[in-house]
């Protein structure tokens, strides 16, 4: 049968559409306004974020994070609307993160979304956080049908699109990669500002010594909890020097920088490997990295080498879009809204568990 090119089910709109997106599934509160124009173009009108930062050595707890989101919601949303140079009445819909994520922060943002929806009589669109990342990544980079590596504090997935579904080819069997990095950053007391992952990345640049760690890929899945246990154990090794002052090459010591370096090299190798396996499996040459860990330049570099060897390309975004934000929720939400999807008020709940492959991707052929 001759292969017929399917037309996109998403037609150019007859008028410009504008959506507000609200995100708060973890410690970032984001609001963004997006515009889909009649010529099919997409424009980011504003993208505002406020991050709940905890002192070094401390993680963020759901209750405190939810309080942060409540306290900042109005400021952030107002800022987004002003920067977009619109009023609330110009919106076509209000998009919010339905899940997955932490319960309390999700609920606090959903509550704001519901209130705004009632106040301004705007329809609600509940959005899957992961799909938000993917759609924004595709929009920003122009990648057409990439294998997606989604790496963040709560998720680690290798995803590929097939028949109106983002199928998960591989994922973590225990903790997420961002979680693994963040927790280790806390163990060695690195700063949470701007993010623990960023601190690890900077520290790793000074590392030289590669310490042996478990390498646990299983088909297209990875397991990371054993690596975390193992790298933590090095901090009580007698060769470990917490101060990490520069040393002679020959000296048999392990510095925090060496551990950050080893952790990144090992974990990122595993991620690149399962991504490549998925690419080989479906015969794709493009890879898109999304999620907070996706801004890590070493990960992008390694993925680039792999893609290049396969004669392909890697697409990545910078921190504006990689790290959780409101605009990605607006983007994914507006796409499904244009396909006729809305979330009735009575069903505008959130859920901590919401798999990427549960979403009907109606807007793609």
């Amino acid at each position, binding site marked *: 049968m001759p292969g017929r090119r399917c037309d996109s089910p998403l037609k150019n709109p007859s008028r410009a559409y504008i959506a507000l997106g609200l995100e708060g*599934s973890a410690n970032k509160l984001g609001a963004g306004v997006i515009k889909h124009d009649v010529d099919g173009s997409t424009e980011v009108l504003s993208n505002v974020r406020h991050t709940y930062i905890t002192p070094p050595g401390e993680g963020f707890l759901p209750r405190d994070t939810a309080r942060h989101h409540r306290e900042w919601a109005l400021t952030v949303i107002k800022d987004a609307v002003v920067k977009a140079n619109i009023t609330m009445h110009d919106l076509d819909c209000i998009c919010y993160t339905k*899940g*997955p*994520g*932490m319960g309390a922060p999700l609920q606090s943002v959903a509550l704001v979304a519901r209130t705004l929806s009632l106040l301004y009589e705007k329809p609600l669109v509940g959005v899957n*956080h992961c799909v938000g990342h993917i759609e924004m990544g595709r929009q920003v980079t122009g990648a057409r049908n990439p294998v997606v590596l989604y790496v963040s504090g*709560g*998720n680690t997935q290798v995803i590929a699109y097939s028949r109106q579904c983002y199928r*998960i080819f591989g*994922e*973590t*069997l225990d903790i997420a990669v961002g979680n693994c990095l963040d927790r280790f950053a806390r163990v060695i007391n690195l700063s949470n500002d701007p993010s623990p992952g960023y601190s690890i990345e900077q520290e790793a640049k000074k590392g030289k010594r*590669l310490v*042996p760690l478990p*390498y646990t890929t*299983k*088909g297209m899945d990875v397991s990371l909890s054993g690596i975390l246990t193992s790298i933590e154990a090095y901090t009580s090794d007698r060769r470990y020097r917490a101060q990490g002052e520069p040393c002679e090459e020959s000296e048999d010591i392990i510095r925090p920088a060496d551990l950050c370096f080893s952790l990144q*090299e*090992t974990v990122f*190798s595993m991620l*690149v*490997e399962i991504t*490549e*396996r998925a*690419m*080989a499996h479906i015969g794709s040459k493009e890879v898109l990295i999304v999620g907070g860990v996706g801004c890590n330049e070493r990960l992008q570099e*390694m*993925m680039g*080498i*792999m893609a290049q*060897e*396969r004669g392909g390309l890697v697409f990545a975004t910078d921190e504006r879009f990689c790290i959780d934000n409101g605009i990605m929720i607006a983007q994914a939400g507006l796409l499904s809204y244009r396909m006729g999807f809305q979330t009735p008020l009575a069903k505008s709940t959130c859920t*901590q*568990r*919401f*798999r990427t492959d549960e979403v009907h991707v109606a807007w793609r052929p």
Partner: protein
Amino acid sequence: MLSSLSSKPPTQQLLQSADLVSQGAEAAIYKAYLRQFPTSGHGVDDAAFEASEPVLLKHRFHKHYRHPSLDASLTRQRIAGEARALMRCMRSGVTVPGIRMVDVNEGVLGIEWIDGKSVRQLLPGGAELDEINELEEVDEIHENGAADPIGDYGVSGGRTVHMLIGLYSSSVDALMNMIGVEIAKMHLADIIHGDLTTSNMMLRKQTSDLVLIDFGLAYHSTLVEDKAVDLYVLERAFASTHPDSEPLFSEVLNAYEKRMGKRWLPIKKRLDDVRLRGRKRSMVG
């Protein structure tokens, strides 16, 4: 030219002279000959036979994105792991290719060359055969006098061309039975294949053995979950590669069940669970 060639490590030279069979994401597969025999002269009595015995080389090439020392140690581990899984299978009576050469420095595993066809090629939907329309297929059958691609391999006796359908299905059943038995033997030895597909099993031409191949993702496990997932992966592979293959796979499971005996029940229960949830567990965001 010749001197620069001979300065290369032996296994690299061997790869250079070998025929590339396929190129995967992590390894390249070659067909090669480990030694050469004199074309004439002394003591070549059984040389003609030996010379014609090729090996399959699996070359795990460098991954440049990986730190070199991590890459080297991983390659070493994986080659060792694959060889050990094969050895464990061999000792447990699972039909797998024998090992012929190992060079961990160069990342090469040499195994017995299996002359035959993959199960994928033998079943409908797996080969290019399905692109030929049915009329042509029947013509071809009359010409060759052999209706049954599997029967050719001695899995069932070939009778008459007129019994096309019945004959065909009986040899398919025999094949499915063999698959179930081999997987059961492997699981009884607590080996999980990790990548069971109809491409990773072959019917050997001379002896009609069913040979399980490609243990690159194999590991040791006693867990019911791992065995159930192994079966589920194969079930999915059947479904996605061979249309209307439910009766085929249930034949595989029947044979597996018989062989596993009382160990079957917990695996069956878990397999039902896995079917419901898919290969993946449900995760918190």
